[in-house]
């Protein structure tokens, strides 16, 4: 029995220009770009589309918490985010009210300074604040915070609003979406195809946009795509009076915090839950969660009065250098991949769009050399 009545049916025999494997934020933006370029596209997903990392992350669209190499890409992706609600014709909970990146120790403050100088040189609007500035503009942040930077370019969106709106837009553009259709095999070579549990799909080109699962799919066509797994936890508090006006991130990347439209505070920071792709678990580790929440309280003491309503965990695929994969798979001329950006929710619209451009035109509007999926192919496992 499946949640999707159609998903037990055998697939009609049909050939597409492109089969996109994985209907998260990368895959759906890739599909949208391809459809706009006039391609016939099918999106194939092992579960319902938009049900893993794209759906369960905390929605941060941070610019200050990205690797320096990704800063230009973050700003380009934000250009897509800025007009997305209008393009989708839906509320996506987008806010760009700026954000504080904070340091609680002198060592963290030094790191904050070094990184923010780099970011500034790369075109980010980021300012170092004095403690007095911070007390004045964000009195809800603890006075134990020794240093902070502020960027008006930080923001967030609501993943549970983005997903359905994006799906509707993708479907409106003529793309076929196959939920609950796990891929069992990829046939490479002249007669390209994707074998699923519901039958085989013919396609001229294949895009692997399967996040943490991308390594498994690449392995089906003989490509080594190293990806390690993070199981990130997120917690949400009860609704509280609007107080925290900006997103908060941490010099060491161990805290993200925001208060969203319904008054709830979302608390993350990459603290690790329990699970693997093999055992399909993604569970909260309370031993770890305690540290996540304690840190949140140290930074914003007022949170102490609020109840945590829920905590959950979700998978995030991580590459060896934390940069995404984007491009042709090594040794192939019609199988592509885009997956696993640190900050994939922020970067997803751009990454998906660039992959769509590459597949439809053979070139991209932004440079993608540093994302070459073959960059670790010759490194010993």
């Amino acid at each position: 029995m499946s949640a999707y009545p159609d998903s037990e049916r055998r697939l009609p025999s049909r050939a597409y220009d492109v089969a996109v494997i994985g209907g998260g934020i990368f895959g759906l933006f890739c599909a949208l770009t391809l459809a706009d370029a006039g391609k016939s596209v099918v999106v194939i997903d092992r579960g319902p589309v938009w049900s893993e990392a794209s759906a369960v992350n905390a929605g941060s669209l941070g610019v200050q918490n990205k690797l320096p190499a990704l800063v230009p890409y973050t700003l380009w992706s934000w250009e897509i985010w800025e007009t997305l609600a209008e393009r989708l014709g839906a509320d996506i909970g987008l806010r760009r009210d700026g954000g504080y990146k904070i340091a609680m120790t002198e060592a963290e403050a030094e790191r904050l300074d070094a990184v923010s100088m780099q970011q500034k040189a790369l075109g980010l609007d980021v300012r170092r604040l004095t403690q007095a500035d911070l007390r004045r503009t964000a009195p809800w942040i603890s006075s134990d915070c020794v240093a902070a930077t502020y960027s008006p370019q930080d923001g967030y969106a609501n993943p549970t609003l983005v997903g359905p709106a994006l799906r509707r837009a993708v479907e409106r553009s003529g793309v076929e979406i196959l939920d609950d259709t796990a891929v069992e095999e990829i046939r490479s070579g002249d007669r390209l195809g994707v074998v699923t549990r519901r039958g085989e799909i013919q396609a001229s080109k294949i895009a692997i946009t399967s996040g943490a699962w991308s390594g498994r799919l690449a392995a089906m066509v003989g490509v080594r795509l190293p990806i390690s797994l993070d199981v990130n936890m997120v917690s949400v508090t009860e609704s509280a009076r609007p107080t925290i006006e900006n997103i908060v991130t941490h010099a060491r990347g161990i805290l993200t915090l925001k208060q969203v439209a319904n008054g709830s505070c979302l608390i993350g920071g990459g603290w690790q839950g329990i699970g693997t792709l093999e055992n399909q678990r993604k569970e909260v580790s309370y031993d770890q969660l305690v540290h996540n929440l304690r840190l949140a309280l140290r930074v914003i003491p007022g949170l102490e009065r609020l109840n945590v309503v829920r905590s959950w965990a979700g998978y995030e695929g991580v590459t060896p250098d934390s940069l995404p994969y984007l491009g042709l798979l090594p040794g192939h001329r019609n199988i592509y991949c885009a997956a696993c950006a640190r900050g994939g929710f922020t970067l997803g619209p751009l990454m998906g769009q660039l992959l769509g451009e590459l597949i439809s035109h053979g070139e991209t509007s932004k440079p993608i050399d540093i994302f070459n999926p073959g960059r670790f192919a010759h490194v010993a496992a």
Partner: protein
Amino acid sequence: MSQPSVRLIEGVRPSDETVSFMFEGEKLTGWKGEAIASAVMRAGLRTLRRTRIGDEPRGYYCGMGLCWECAVHVEGQGVVRSCSEPVREGLVISFADGRWDK
């Protein structure tokens, strides 16, 4: 669509002792040991709080402490789940409005 009203199961009664409490400015009576949500709903009130987006009514939903839809504010105690918090004599209860203090 009509909504089901609250009905008592014949013969089930947690206590013979009654307590009075305030809910959103109204004086209500409950049985000692009864959940706040139960006592409020027996008084014919279904709205236990209102949402910050759209000011929509929310109330008893999962009934077992998971969903937090029934959260209310108890003076001096803070926000609690009314489905699993016993009503007591003299409680002053209001919609949970997300105060950062008790």
